């Protein structure tokens, strides 16, 4: 198996570019859903110990909403769409207003909220995965149905770490931030912020770099 510690800059750039293409497509999908402009940053690529994933992402106690999908096939990976609870609430609100006009109740049942977040995550992650698989030229991939959770950051990443921990100790994460600017509020203020995180399976990285001709 590939030694995760020995990536050169060319390889890291290639991995970052894959994340960039995937995030670009996810951003376009989100933009279509919300009919507004989405800003995205160049993804960060980092090698993180699975045991300290939650420290990497900040406050372990923070309440976040997350959508999780597994993609299997030639290029196996896990993708998580994650945002602070306040941001998720704003996003759902914006989405429902977009779809139904102003006629939405001020307080929605949790199920509606979770279902909306799950669907946004589903569309974004699917766009992300389609773009990535197309770029690296895999023949087929199959996505799981989305799983949604709203809980402490640490407990959500705990699940991710356990899954990854079955395969290795270090995880290569590709992390991209998407922002909707023209909205009041949000955890960081001045807009909705969300992240897409991809964790390629350890054996999938070799395929990825091979297909991109940088192995």
């Amino acid at each position, binding site marked *: 198996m590939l030694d995760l510690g020995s990536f050169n800059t060319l390889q890291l750039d290639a991995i970052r570019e894959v994340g960039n293409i995937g995030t670009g497509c996810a951003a376009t999908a989100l933009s279509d859903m919300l009919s507004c402009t989405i800003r995205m940053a160049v993804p960060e690529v980092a090698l993180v110990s699975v*045991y*300290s994933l*939650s420290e990497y992402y900040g406050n372990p106690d923070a309440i976040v909403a997350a959508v999780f999908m597994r993609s299997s096939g030639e290029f196996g990976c896990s993708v998580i769409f994650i945002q602070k609870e306040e941001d998720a609430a704003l996003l759902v609100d914006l989405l429902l207003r977009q779809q139904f006009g102003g006629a939405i109740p001020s307080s929605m049942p949790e199920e509606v909220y979770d279902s909306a977040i799950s669907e946004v995550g589903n569309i974004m992650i699917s766009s992300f995965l389609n773009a990535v698989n197309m770029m690296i030229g895999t023949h087929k991939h199959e996505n*799981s149905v989305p799983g*949604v*959770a709203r809980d402490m950051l640490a407990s959500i990443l*705990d699940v991710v770490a*356990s899954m990854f921990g079955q395969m290795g100790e270090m995880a290569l994460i590709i992390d991209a931030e998407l922002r909707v600017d023209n909205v009041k509020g949000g955890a960081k203020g001045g807009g909705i912020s969300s992240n897409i995180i991809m964790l390629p399976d350890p054996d999938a990285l070799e395929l990825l770099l091979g297909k991109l001709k940088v192995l």
Partner: protein
Amino acid sequence: MSGGAGGGGTVYHVGMADLVVANAPATLITLGLGSCIGLVIYDTVAKVAGMAHIMLPESRGAKVEKLGKFADTAVPALVSEMLQKGAEKLRMKAKLAGGAQMFAMPGTGAGSDFLAVGARNVKETTRMLSHFGIALLASDTGGNKGRTVEFCTNTWMLTIKTLGRGTSEI
């Protein structure tokens, strides 16, 4: 790793795949358990308590660097470290929490057995405890919510905080 705290003795944060054994007075804390298990074994006479943050059920004979990672390595490691600190096997008792299935996914699509890891963690940890003849006095497992657990040697109680359900003690 440790620091002073009022009343609860030394406070230890038990990170993912870690295990900590401490003499009383001590407070052992694990933040945000999802599918993982927070296992406590203690001996109230020798006043020793240990906590492990177990991620997966079985090591399958692999070389394990962090013994707390797997149920089948964490339980023996906790027991032997407790024996060294003066505990006795016959007096050891256990409590555990965790093993949630955080992401509810309908059907049995790709990756579903990955996600059932919480239930497998509970089963294997329980099996290991009975293998060592340690009584499991209380547990709070399953569901779809994360847990933060805190074990204090003043009361020998495991406090469990869950989002939306508040705090309980077992």
